[in-house]
């Protein structure tokens, strides 16, 4: 893989992550102006509970609740840097740069540990 392609790949991962999250957050935000954060864009019953609760997202997404749509977008945004590091591991490996593939893999493992273990 050439350095140019590597850069293009990492850049694409970031753009796609940002675009998907901006679209979801935006739809949720505009939807909230129309039916409220806890309403339903398909005319379902309003949900209750805190908009800070990320645990029951699938059920609330099914009724197209604006808060849930924005939450999915926010979660996508927070995951984007992790996807970028994962893509960099592949990029350095394809560039046959063993030193930096190893360094980046170590960063990815530390990152995943801190997200899933230290909480």
């Amino acid at each position: 893989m050439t350095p140019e392609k590597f850069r293009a790949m990492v850049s694409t991962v970031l753009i796609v992550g940002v675009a998907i999250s901006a679209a979801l957050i935006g739809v949720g935000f505009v939807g909230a102006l129309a039916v409220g954060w806890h309403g339903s864009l398909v005319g379902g019953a309003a949900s209750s509970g805190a908009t800070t609760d990320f645990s029951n997202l699938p059920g609330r997404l099914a009724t197209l609740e604006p808060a849930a749509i924005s939450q999915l977008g926010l979660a996508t945004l927070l995951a984007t840097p992790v996807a970028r590091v994962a893509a960099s591991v592949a990029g350095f490996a394809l560039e046959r740069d063993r030193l930096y593939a190893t360094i980046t893999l170590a960063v990815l493992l530390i990152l995943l540990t801190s997200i899933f273990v230290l909480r």
Partner: protein
Amino acid sequence: MITPQADLGIFAISVAAGLIGALAGVGGGILVIPALTILFGVDIHLAIGASIVSVIATSSGAAAAYVRDRMTDMRVGMFLELATTTGAVCGALLASVVAPALLYVLLGLVLLGSAGMHVSRMGEETPPTDPPSELALRLRLTSSYPDRKLGREVPYSARRIPLGFALMWGAGMVSGLLGIGSGVLKVLAMDGAMRLPMKVSSATSNFMIGVTAAASAGIYLGRGDVDPQVAAPVALGVLAGALVGARLLHHISNRTVRLVFLPVLVVVGLETIARGLGFGI
């Protein structure tokens, strides 16, 4: 409950935070947190949750352009992320045993002190071009970036790599412990210690701060500190600002970037001291 008028205000301030953050290599939390708490009466925990979102939005939005345009040095970034992520884990583990008040004040004083150092380099456009060290060659931390303002390719190589790595470890530890100032410390370590060109320092810091923030994002989500009512307008505004800022960087000089960074440095220093003294901003 946040009114649509307040949403508009939060959005506007977030655009400014994203713009300045993209240029200066910082997350924009310095603008977002006090604006949310003081102007809009948002709870400090939700404001900090929104600031984590704003850091990742600035980082991902700006870095997408900086990586493609060869402003970000990905090897420097990945090498130093090894230091910041391990530092952040150590910081998070130490958080329960260290008294944060004193740390905030110390960090604030360090930042204000480095503002003096930063002023002394204010007129410098590109760093001196001494031959690269053995270690820089072995770690492949020598490169160049295209400077559209100067109209030429500017070569550089990382200096004082062990010092830079140690400072980055400290920066990671501080952000793990206090959740503040990690972008400012990264720019200072790359520009001040490792003598990378200012624009490369800023673009590479932008690339890195998202990863540092992502390491603790799960904790904030789980704690219920990320509320779309606050974070959605912040994320949308910051993304818009960061995309504009990333285009702007090409058209300004390294000196101008330093000029944007200086007030950020001073404000973060003062804010950090204020927090240590118990003012909730």
